[in-house]
């Protein structure tokens, strides 16, 4: 009757099969209890009762598995729960001193440290520096996802941020277009991204420059961007085979280009100079603040791709204007000559007043100097001694400022670099050491566990070294990870200050050099400097010494077998 009642029930069959499977994989030590539960199933008439019985049996199975796992965790790596089968006599294999649980706890602490926000940032920053801050495909995917989300939420500023940080030109232009379509006030992005330093071609197209002109017609930068686009092919044309530039020929070619001259002229006469540095920093801060986990490689791209006017082209035009002014003065047209020179010094003054990058301030001072030299020549030729003396005084002032600013810039850069050098080295070294340790520990764990399953007959100094590594490696890894995070703290603080807008311009430069110095201390660049070569040799010697000492200790410490 029982068999007839339950025989056709799918529920009953599923319950019995599940229980049979559980018994087949039940930990050996308590398998008889699983068999006992299964043995009773033949007496159960109701399919539902059978399912309930099997469910209880399954709970028992899970408890048995958990108990077996805990027991396994309490044993050293490489020892099985059925460890009594392994030889425990004098010729048996060595095992680590500490349990799997102790090893796992220390490794878990390391993982937790590295998964904390600062740990993640430190790891990503160092990893990006090893790639020379070249964004990876993963970084591109992150930025794409960010842009897709921003598009969905009509977040024009986030799209603008992606446009500044995206490494590929065409996509960056696309995101800039989308940002501008949502918010025309972001049109400055077209003139803000120009990244020759990263090997990227992000020159704005003529159409975009036209939009930029109508957006900000009084800004010299807009015309300089346009002129740069116009003059770039001429620079490429005059670039020699060995990379040398035929400057005279370039000046002549540029002077013949009427569109280029028109834009340069407009730049010189424009009432203001603004390279959108502030807006750009603001947008970078805002974007990075919203996405603190974004790869530093993307941030570095955004940081380094800001637009700078072409010094070569500006100087070429300034020289042309000074030459024209001198010719006009020679032709008794002094008023025109003064006006032309006034345009040159005027742009220089606007660049200095714009308080942007030191490069632009020095460029502005250079323009002032060229213009003032023109004035000096004209006044001296005309015997206007008093005015010539005034100009000489102004020239002295410009030269002094140039020297001061160059000196201040170099000193600041040197100071920042000196401060960063040790920090960056410690960070990079601990990162390399942690990576090597983690790999060695991982391989050792794997080797010990596989050798236990496969019952490899292994011994000798290699096994002792592996056991030693499994015992002390995790603690060493925890220590190196702590030093790694500790040495990243000042860099994390600079990042945070940048995101919160607390950094002034010199500090933004510090951030810039922070990235550069980290890149310079990366393994790819490591052997480039003699200082690093000595450091590497020292580390290697210390490593050999530690190995010899450990080997000696382990020969004694692991000589007696763990039974």
């Amino acid at each position, binding site marked *: 009757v029982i068999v007839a009642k339950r025989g056709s029930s799918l529920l009953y069959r599923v319950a019995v099969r599940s229980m049979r499977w559980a018994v087949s994989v039940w930990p050996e030590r308590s398998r008889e*209890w699983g*068999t006992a*539960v299964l043995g*009773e199933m033949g*007496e159960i008439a109701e399919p539902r009762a059978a399912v309930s*019985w099997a*469910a*209880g049996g*399954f709970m028992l199975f899970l408890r048995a598995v958990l108990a077996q796992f805990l027991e396994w965790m309490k044993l050293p790596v490489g020892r099985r729960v059925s460890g009594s089968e392994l030889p425990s006599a004098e010729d048996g294999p060595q095992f680590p001193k500490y349990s799997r649980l102790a090893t796992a706890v220390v490794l878990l602490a390391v993982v937790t440290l590295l998964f904390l926000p600062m740990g993640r940032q430190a790891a990503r920053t160092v990893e990006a520096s090893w790639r020379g801050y070249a964004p990876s495909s993963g970084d591109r995917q992150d930025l794409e996802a960010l842009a897709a989300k921003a598009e969905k939420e009509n977040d024009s500023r986030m799209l603008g941020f992606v446009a500044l940080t995206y490494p590929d030109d065409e996509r960056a232009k696309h995101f800039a277009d989308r940002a501008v379509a949502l918010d025309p006030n972001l049109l400055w992005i077209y003139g803000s991204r120009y990244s020759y330093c990263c090997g990227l071609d992000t020159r704005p197209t003529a159409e975009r420059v036209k939009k930029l002109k109508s957006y900000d017609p009084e800004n010299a930068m807009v015309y300089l961007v346009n002129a740069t686009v116009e003059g770039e092919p001429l620079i490429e044309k005059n670039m020699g085979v060995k990379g040398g530039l035929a400057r005279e020929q370039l000046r002549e070619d540029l002077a013949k280009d009427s569109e280029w001259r028109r834009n340069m002229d407009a730049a010189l006469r424009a009432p203001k100079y603004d390279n959108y540095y502030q807006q750009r920093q603001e947008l970078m801060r805002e974007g990075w603040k919203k996405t603190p986990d974004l790869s530093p490689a993307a941030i570095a791209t955004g940081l380094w791709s800001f637009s700078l006017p072409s010094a070569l082209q500006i100087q070429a035009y300034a020289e042309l204007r000074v030459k024209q002014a001198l010719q006009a003065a020679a032709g008794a047209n002094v008023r025109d000559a003064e006006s032309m020179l006034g345009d040159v010094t005027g742009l220089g003054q606007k660049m200095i007043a714009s308080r942007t990058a030191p490069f632009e301030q020095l460029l502005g001072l250079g323009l002032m100097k060229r213009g003032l030299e023109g004035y000096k020549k004209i006044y001296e030729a005309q015997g206007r001694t008093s005015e010539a003396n005034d100009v000489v005084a102004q020239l002295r002032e410009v030269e002094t400022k140039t020297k001061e600013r160059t000196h201040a810039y170099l000193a600041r850069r040197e100071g920042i670099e000196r401060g960063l050098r040790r920090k960056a080295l410690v960070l990079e070294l601990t990162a390399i050491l942690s990576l090597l340790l983690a790999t060695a520990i991982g391989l050792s764990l794997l080797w010990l566990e596989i050798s236990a399953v496969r019952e490899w007959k292994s011994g000798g100094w290699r096994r002792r070294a592996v056991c030693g590594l499994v015992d002390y490696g995790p603690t060493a890894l925890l220590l190196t990870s702590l030093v790694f995070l500790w040495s990243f703290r000042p860099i994390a603080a600079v990042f945070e200050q940048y995101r919160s807008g607390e950094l002034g311009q010199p500090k933004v430069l510090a951030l810039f050099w922070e990235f550069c110095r980290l890149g310079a201390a990366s393994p790819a660049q490591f052997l480039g400097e003699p200082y690093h070569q000595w450091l590497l040799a020292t580390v290697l010697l210390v490593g050999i010494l530690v190995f010899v000492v450990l080997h000696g200790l382990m020969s004694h410490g692991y000589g007696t077998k763990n039974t």
Partner: protein
Amino acid sequence: MGLRLRVSRQTLAVLDRLLDQPTHWHYGYALSQQTELASGTLYPILMRLEKAGWLQTKWEEAPVAGRPPRHCYRLNANGREWAREELRAAQSSKFWKPAPEKA
């Protein structure tokens, strides 16, 4: 001898059933029905009793071919003595009372 057990109401119910016919062998499913305990609760109790040394177990061949053998349980002499003491103590402290006999 053996481990000191924490005696719960469920354990007391199992002991009560095992003492009902102390020299007879009991089956797991029958015990489960008598005590109204699920297999997931009953078997850990039986396992603990066995580990403590109070419970005897044996395998019994199934009467029908192809079925797995059945596991049977009964308390040994020490176990019976201990179980009676525990049940008495639990009843006097009103921690537990025997289930009324089913009609």
